[in-house]
């Protein structure tokens, strides 16, 4: 199975999520939320 060949310079879109920028932002946002949650978790229970 091979991917569709794209014209040179054109970026293959992600299979879901709309655009790569959204997916990158999602990963970074997830990290920020995790850190905030862990901080709240540490403050609440320690």
């Amino acid at each position: 199975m091979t991917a569709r060949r794209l014209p040179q310079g054109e970026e293959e879109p992600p299979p879901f999520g709309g655009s790569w920028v959204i997916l990158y932002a999602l990963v970074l946002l997830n990290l920020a939320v995790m850190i905030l949650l862990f901080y709240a978790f540490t403050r609440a229970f320690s």
Partner: protein
Amino acid sequence: MRGLDWLVLVASLAFIVAYGVWKGRRNRDLNGYILGDQSMRWYTVAFSIMATQASAITFISTPGQAYVDGMRFVQFYFGLPLAMVVLSVTVVPLYRRLKVYTAYEFLERRFDVRVRSLAALLFLVQRGLACGLTIYAPAVVLSVLLGWNLYVTNLVIGALVVVYTASGGTKAVSHTNFWQMVIILGGLFTTLIIAVTLLPQNVSFGDAVHVAGLMGRLNAIDFSFDWKNRYTFWSGLIGGFFLALSYFGTDQSQVGRYLSGQSVAQSRIGLLFNGLVKVPMQFVILFIGAMVFVFHQFNPTPIYFNPVETRQVETSVRAGEFHALQEQYDHLSEAKQSEILAMLEARRAGNEAAAVAGAKSVAEIQADALRTREQAKEIVRQVNPRSDGNDVNYIFLSFVLRYLPVGVVGLVLAMIFAASMSSTASELNALASTTVVDFYRRFDKRERSERHLVAVSKAATVIWGGLAILFAEYANRLGSLVEAVNILGSLFYGTILGIFLLAFYFKPVRGNAVFLGALIGEGAVILCFTVTKISFLWYNVVGCVVTIAVAVAITVLGGRLGRPDPRKITSSPSIPPPASRSW
């Protein structure tokens, strides 16, 4: 281990090996054997990346880490999602466009064959040794706790991996990694649920979390900045970022995983998925350790968890002293248990003053218990000078073997084996790929058929597998050298990352400057290791920054070393020249 446990364990291992052999049965050329015909969907790539990174010791040691030190280890992974984004944007499309088999091929295109060979050689040495330890580390823990023969355990783990990795190459590795990760996640969540249900009837989940927090086991975040503190927010975010960038961007055992993706998009999603789930997954593993800690507040706890070293003390002249400490520890545990239950009762009744007083009392008894345990560990070290008195690796599996129900023990052991085999398989596959592509095919001038190259790759996998098993068999005789080999990764990753970053982002820099920069960068890391107490995560930053700074300085100063080498080899038999260069 009961019959059902053996059945679960043997069935899981048999399934993995048979599935690997079956999935990798059609390999006609090097593209199929090393890149899996670039046919993997994103979820296979993602699980393969995760299974490769998570070795058995991750699952054996991490809960123990939370038991003794709390959850701050989770910060180690904060740089990883950032690195996944950077690699998805830059490295993945570049490697795919150049149609490389290994990361090191790219270095010859950019610099020269010396830099490629140096980086490939560093990888082979470092990963070859690490591969032996990937087999040895879980084998030694399993042999101590279950009484299995260490040499046979090493041999079984190694041989099973070699069978399907050699026969099926990357297809076998990636597809088995997927199922190994399924087993690992199944084992993890089952253990978490059972650990919580094993708590006493009068202790709720909320109470357990409260007790874990009170006793310092839920310290997930530490914003203080301290160079010597191994796990802080800053060392995890910055040092962890450099480590992840280097490991996932330049280590062939990971590069090979995402190069097998169907397309740039599938490879990228695989990496990004890892960036999404790695931190919460590590949190869950550490949380299991915190729950095991709470469980032990209400159940008998050995003062030292390594049974072999405990027996050595019990047969020595210090046995009486050790038993006295165990008795003292038991008394403290009983007193602590009463205080915890009283404190929880006061908390439920809304009696804040009594709850605070109870918490203070628990903390004081806990401090006494820790001092007692430290004394016992000191006796262990004195009786056996080769022991470091560290029983972290034995805590989680001791809990599993003593308290988990029949069948689940087999599942957890299958999880440990799966984790060990998945990492080892990816490492062997990468070692064979680098040996064949960066050395055999690069320097053998004869025209070789694809069939011949696949046969050589299989032979290289078997040879590296044999060497890894051999190293694992001798690892227990190396003593403190094992610890040195463990931090080997951080001694080299920074320099290798510096070389790759120069290749990606510093257009005017040439091979000679990079070569000298790498030597000085490596010297700086070794200096940090030998004469400072800087935490090892920072070595990655030091090696990378010094390598880049020296190479750029040489280039800017415009000396002979910064100019292009007239003898530079610009074409490689393994890399077709790209239509246009992006650097």
